[in-house]
């Protein structure tokens, strides 16, 4: 609990602040990257920084600089990352090499070069090298105030970059052809997006590892997308989700002895993703399941009311209900749910020994549905030339979903005709 409130001592506070800032920057940049369909480029960039780090280390020791100075290592990583971006784009332009293969090739071959350079580093200075393990998993627990300043600065640059160019980026991500034709700076925006990805990756590497940077770049945007349909809101939400993942994740990992910070942060954002996937309004699994159940209930209820209307009665007895249920293969649970939902909607009165009495609203609804049914069937037969005997499925479905305006149009077009036939 103490860790969650920034009172867990200086070290913990440093880590909390650092990972939150990183999450924020990654969420923001990742959102743009996802819209530009560049999510996994970050993966390649992350792995491709290894030769940069090892190379910088070797060069620094050769020319007599401090091999472990952070700016030198980060510069090396950034150079390698930019090179990897250039190579990916060149490869993807070659015949017969598609973008996915290009990303995979750069990711693994750059990493291989890194492994070779790293073994040279380890041979030269066995104690001075950061292990490969840290590179991949990260060592967030050892974050220093200096690291937080670096991350803070990078987060600031990313936020500024995305804020400044948010409109341009939106246009370029949405419709490149239009952006080209309209004179938007397409190439520049692509470059800016790439540079921002590189910045975030390099900032995150040392502290949280490659895989976690990728996770923070990918998971928060996908989660944010579940909650909103708006571009700006999605950017904000993605940044907030990234920051939350970083904050909560490192707080939890500080509370447990062995928990690796990077992994816990990813899992935190994973949990946020799963929760959103389940519970988000509209796009969530629960919401769409509920929508589908309610739709089925509404249609089923309509069938019941319509049957009553067809039978010319405003009463529904148990036998009639069982007949409908058997015809439509409803089980007992669904049957009861249909009745319950009709009662909740005020279309059916409470049960009496003779059965259920339709409310005036229920009778009206039944009549309207029946009318729509007739109009639609007439429309299909007259205008769409579908044989009258075959309109089953669509009439069954459509009569319940047409809006008032469409029904009105049907009424004006065909109403007189249906009426005439019904009379005859």
């Amino acid at each position, binding site marked *: 609990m103490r860790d969650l409130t920034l009172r867990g001592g200086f070290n913990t506070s440093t880590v909390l602040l650092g990972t939150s800032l990183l999450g924020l920057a990654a969420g923001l940049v990742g959102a743009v990257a996802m819209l530009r369909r560049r999510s996994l480029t970050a993966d390649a960039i992350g792995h491709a920084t290894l030769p940069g780090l090892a190379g910088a280390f070797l060069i620094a020791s050769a020319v007599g600089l401090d091999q472990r100075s952070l700016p030198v290592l980060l510069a090396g990583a950034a150079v390698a990352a930019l090179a990897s971006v250039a190579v990916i784009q060149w490869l993807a332009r070659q015949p*017969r090499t598609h973008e996915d293969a290009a990303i995979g090739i750069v990711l693994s071959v750059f990493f291989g070069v890194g492994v070779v350079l790293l073994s040279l580093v380890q041979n030269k200075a066995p104690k001075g090298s950061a292990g490969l393990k840290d590179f991949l998993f990260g060592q967030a627990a050892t974050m220093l105030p200096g690291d937080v300043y670096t991350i803070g600065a990078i987060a600031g640059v990313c936020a500024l970059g995305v804020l400044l160019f948010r409109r341009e980026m939106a246009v370029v991500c949405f419709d490149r052809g239009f952006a080209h034709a309209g004179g938007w700076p397409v190439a520049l925006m692509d470059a800016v997006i790439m540079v921002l990805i590189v910045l975030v990756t390099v900032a995150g590497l040392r502290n949280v590892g490659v895989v976690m940077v990728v996770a923070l770049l990918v998971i928060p945007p996908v989660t944010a997308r579940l909650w909103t*349909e708006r571009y700006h809101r999605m950017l904000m939400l993605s940044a907030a989700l990234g920051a939350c993942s970083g904050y909560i994740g490192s707080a939890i990992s500080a509370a447990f002895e062995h928990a690796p910070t990077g992994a816990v942060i990813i899992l935190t954002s994973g949990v946020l993703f799963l929760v959103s996937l389940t519970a988000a309004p*509209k*796009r969530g699994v629960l*919401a*769409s399941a509920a*929508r*589908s159940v309610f*739709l089925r209930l509404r249609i089923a209820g309509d069938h019941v009311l319509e049957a009553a209307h067809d039978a010319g009665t405003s009463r529904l007895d148990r036998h009639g209900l069982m007949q409908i249920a058997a*015809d*439509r*293969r409803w089980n007992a649970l669904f049957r009861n749910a249909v009745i319950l939902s009709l009662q909740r909607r005020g279309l059916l009165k409470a049960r009496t020994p003779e059965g259920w009495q339709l409310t005036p609203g229920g009778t009206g609804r039944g009549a309207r549905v029946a009318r729509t*049914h*007739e109009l*639609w*069937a*007439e*429309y*299909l*037969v007259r*205008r*769409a*030339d*579908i*044989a*009258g*005997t*075959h*309109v*089953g*499925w*669509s*009439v*069954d*479905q*459509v009569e*319940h*979903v*047409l*809006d008032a305006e*469409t029904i009105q*149009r*049907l009424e004006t077009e065909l109403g007189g005709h*249906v009426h005439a*036939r*019904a009379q005859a």
Partner: protein
Amino acid sequence: MIQGRRTKRPVGDLADRPEHSPQSPLSIHAMTVAYNRRPVLWDVDYDAPAGSLIAVVGPNGAGKSTLIKGCLGLVPLAAGAVEFWGQPLRDERARVGYVPQRETVDWDFPVSALDVVCMGRYGKIGWCRPIGRQHRKAARDCLDRVGLGEYADRQIGQLSGGQQQRVFLARALAQEADLYLMDEPFAGVDAATERAIVDVLREMRATGRTVVVVHHDLQTVPVYFDHAVLLNMRVVAAGPVSEVFTTTNLQQTYGGRLTLLSEAADALARADGAAL
């Protein structure tokens, strides 16, 4: 009461549908196909007459390809059923050939024209067996029949569009099916290919086969085909070309959409939240 009233019963119940002749190579019963609950094809009912060349025509987005894919089970049916010689597809798969649209495959794929034609024989070869000499020979004969004998060893990407289409046709020939469903074989082909396709189609008919072709060129329909299905989200008319190719029918097929049909499709999709 109008007729529609009497049809309110559970979907998929075929007992009271009009009798379909078991001889028909392809019987479509009240087929409705929906993508994400948005119907693109409504209540199609059609019996293909055996041994004829049938054109499926209609404007863009009329559901022509969907009709064929629905028959072959490549897209799920929202309602209805399809039978081949009175049997489900599963039992007659070997007798049904399919020619997909040219754009659906990766033409950079490392196979030669002959390899692709051999794929038509897979149903006859069986699992895990190599492609035998007689199958290769059969495939080569099919390539010859579409006039591509000399290109057998070319990588398919190095063929022209028309030649690629002819390779697909040869693959269908190699399958030796009794019913063929072809999706836009005439799209964007040169004159030589068009002639080759027509020759093959006529040959198929002469040997008693049935061919259903999605076609976009109205002018050639009466020349190439015996029967036609006019399609625009639903079957407007179907039957011998001479009977269905009337100005009224064509106007109904091409003269704008049935806006209400589209709106109803939208409403269905919206009701389920699929149109987000």
